[in-house]
């Protein structure tokens, strides 16, 4: 500990940002909020019209850019150049979108590879640029309200955001001229807002049902420490889905096909208005295209029951991971606009057996928590956030299998190293393929980055020692370093969102991993058996090539016949057959191997000098 203090130069400022102010930003799918905390009391910042909740919508008209309520009005009136729900595209590639079926909601730029781009008003824009416009707007709102420049922020992200989406969020902040002091998970921010307020102790569940995503986190609050124990969620589940359910109902009742994007946007807006009305009334109308469709609260609840049930499954998963029963949870905190729906509140209360906390505005609570953390990071605080990584991280190994390096729900920051070796004789390069997800096979996980470690000296297979280190910082961002230990050849990458990345499907992947766990293991065993068999074949072939002189008459034919059987078994899917044929091969090769060994020993003895023998 002393060493750390010694490197502290007197010239460096020991006071952390004493004169600077930092804001908290909840950059949401449907709306965003900016807040500031001074002296421990967080407050949402309002715009000139007294509004704190800013729609996450941007309109592009030539060089002119409009953000927030004006852009939402433009969207509702079907104007061109409007982009909404851009958060769903953060860190994603075009192919990810095709898979998730989200592409229909945006006018995508077809001509690009890698990161997806959106067409608006004749411009090709990245989700990072569009998010930056939202952040700029929030930043200037704060500057106007505070009467001073603001350059630092804590920004919240869904706990389930993957590495690419987190990196994209940080990039957007950079573009908006904001230094990110910390990315924190939305549920954690909510806990912070409640916890500091009430000095609560015990185990808490944060149920965060927002516009576009659902997150559940289980936290322990003790001595001012917020320890995240487990987190689960669904990145394709939110209030938007409720709006779509109502819209689908309206189209069905009126017997209409899916309308044009502009008309559909209006229908969604009308559906959302009906949903909001149903939080206090028993019946509401969807006004669209000059017609009204009436919806009862009971009918609405039936439409969304499946969506709510999916959130409850996530709650079960997170509690199991944390090792608690629902009844052992001391308190439940509601976050996100979708928790205003009475049916949602009721289901949460039933599941946990206690009424949830809803004292703070669920639309503001995340930003309030972020503001508190921003203050803690600039002014200092006794409170501490200990977070975990929501998804496992690993590497591709032989046979397309993912070797997990960092397991999900591991506390961050963390660094883990694993040694690998080469598979073939004389192999001088190694492909390092970084993946995120819970499944066993590469194609079922999210590819984060690929690079090649070169300059490995040619050696026999298995002799090289390559150490690969995964480092996950406190923001949940990953960097990967590879080093060949015998030569010191090194390579390092910050994992950047340039490959086929997405944060969608993660929950589905997670669920799949449980359901497929058994088939995955069988498949893995099969692949491993194949790899093992291939290795035996290679060993035998190179032994024959080297020491053909030691073979007895007919022995080569016998070995080759058995090798052929091994090859046939490898082509099949019967693992036991492969193992059996390999065992047979070892048996057939046995006496030849013994002769090689004897010859090697004899050779070694001959090489020993006479005086060493005495």
């Amino acid at each position, binding site marked *: 500990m002393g060493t*750390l203090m010694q*490197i*502290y130069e007197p010239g*460096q*400022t*020991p006071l*952390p*940002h004493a004169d600077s102010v930092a804001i908290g930003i909840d950059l949401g799918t449907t709306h965003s909020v900016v807040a500031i905390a001074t002296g421990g009391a967080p407050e949402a910042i309002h715009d000139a019209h007294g509004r704190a909740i800013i729609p996450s919508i941007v309109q592009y008209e030539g060089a002119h850019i409009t953000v927030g309520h004006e852009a939402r009005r433009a969207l509702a009136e079907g104007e061109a150049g409007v982009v909404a729900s851009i958060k769903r595209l953060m860190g994603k590639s075009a192919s990810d979108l095709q898979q998730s079926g989200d592409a229909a909601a945006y006018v995508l730029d077809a001509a690009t590879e890698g990161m997806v781009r959106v067409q608006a008003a004749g411009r090709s824009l990245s989700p990072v640029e569009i998010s930056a416009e939202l952040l700029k707007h929030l930043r200037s709102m704060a500057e106007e309200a505070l009467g001073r420049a603001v350059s630092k922020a804590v920004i919240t992200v869904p706990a389930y955001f993957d590495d690419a989406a987190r990196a994209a969020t940080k990039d957007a902040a950079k573009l908006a001229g904001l230094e990110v*002091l*910390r990315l924190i998970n939305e549920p954690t921010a909510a806990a912070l807002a409640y916890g500091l307020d009430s000095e609560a102790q015990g185990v808490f569940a944060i149920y965060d049902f927002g516009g576009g995503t659902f997150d559940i986190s289980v936290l322990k609050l*003790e*001595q001012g*420490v917020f*320890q995240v124990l487990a987190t689960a969620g669904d990145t394709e589940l939110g209030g938007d889905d409720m709006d779509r359910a109502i819209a689908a109902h309206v189209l069905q009742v009126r017997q209409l096909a899916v309308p044009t994007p502009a008309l559909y946007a209006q229908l969604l807006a009308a559906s959302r208005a009906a949903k909001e009305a149903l939080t206090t009334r028993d019946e509401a109308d969807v006004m669209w295209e000059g017609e009204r469709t009436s919806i009862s609260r009971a009918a609405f609840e039936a439409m969304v029951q499946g969506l709510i049930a999916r959130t409850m499954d996530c709650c079960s998963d997170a509690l199991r991971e944390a090792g608690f029963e629902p009844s052992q949870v001391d308190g439940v905190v509601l976050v996100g606009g979708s928790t205003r729906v009475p049916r949602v509140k009721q289901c949460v209360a039933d599941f946990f057996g206690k009424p949830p906390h809803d004292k703070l505005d669920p639309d503001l609570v995340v930003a309030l928590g972020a503001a508190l953390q921003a203050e*803690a*990071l*600039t002014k200092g605080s*006794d409170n*501490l*956030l*200990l977070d975990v990584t929501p998804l496992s991280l690993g*590497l*591709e*190994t*032989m046979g397309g299998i993912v*070797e997990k*390096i960092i397991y999900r729900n*591991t*506390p*961050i*920051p*963390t*660094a*883990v*190293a*694993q*040694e*690998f*070796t*080469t*598979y073939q004789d004389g*192999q001088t*390069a*190694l*492909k*390092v393929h970084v993946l995120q997800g819970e499944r066993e096979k590469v194609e079922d996980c999210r590819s984060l980055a690929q690079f*090649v470690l070169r300059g490995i000296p040619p050696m026999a*297979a*298995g002799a090289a*020692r*390559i*150490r690969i*280190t995964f*480092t996950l*910082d*406190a923001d949940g961002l990953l960097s990967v370093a590879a080093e060949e230990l015998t030569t010191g050849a090194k390579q390092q990458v910050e994992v950047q969102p340039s490959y086929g990345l997405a944060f969608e499907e993660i929950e589905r992947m997670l669920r799949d991993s*449980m*359901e497929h*766990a*058994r088939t995955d293991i069988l498949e893995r065993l099969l692949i491993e058996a194949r790899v093992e068999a291939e290795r035996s074949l290679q060993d035998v072939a190179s032994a024959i090539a080297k020491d053909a002189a030691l073979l007895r008459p007919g022995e080569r034919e016998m070995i080759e016949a058995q090798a052929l059987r091994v090859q046939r078994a490898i082509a099949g899917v019967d693992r036991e057959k492969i193992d059996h044929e390999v065992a047979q091969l070892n048996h057939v090769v046995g006496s030849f191997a013994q002769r090689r060994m004897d010859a090697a020993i004899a050779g070694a003895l001959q090489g020993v000098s006479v005086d060493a023998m005495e």
Partner: protein
Amino acid sequence: MTMDRLGNLTYIARMHSYYEILGLPVAFELNLKTLERAYFDAQRQWHPDRFVGKGEDLREQAAIRSMQINDAYETLKNPLARARHLLELRGIFIDDDSNPPPALLMEVMELRERIQEVAEDGRALHAELESLKKAMGISTQAIADAFNTEDWPVMEEEVLRLGYYGRALEEAHMLIYRLKANHAKEHH
């Protein structure tokens, strides 16, 4: 250009004593509350959030320290990982390639066969689960005794046994989950 795994995961702090990192006395028996308090205290001091706006070098060193503290906590809170760490501190390394005594191997094979036999029977699976948990408790106590009497060969064998039990427990849990999932599907 593909790669092959070589050995176990190495945690960055492996070369250190996790007990030292958290300022705890070296012992197998460990009160989880005490561990948690030591963990919180250490993170309160070294977590990167405590070093925002300070020099780059200082932040880097604090981050490494914070990682070590996380490793230490994750390792020591789990009895099996804790026992392995204690053996490592004495130069005894147990990995996937360690050869178990034949009698232990036999016992474990029988155990897993028994679980596979009742794979479709929820009640029997739960019974196996319960007896497995009991066996794990006994094994954990044996590790504690071996550590206290410094009987390293016995401790090593019990650590292997507890590891096998743990994997069998996981398998049983997975089978139960699968039964439940199938059951739910049928209801649909």
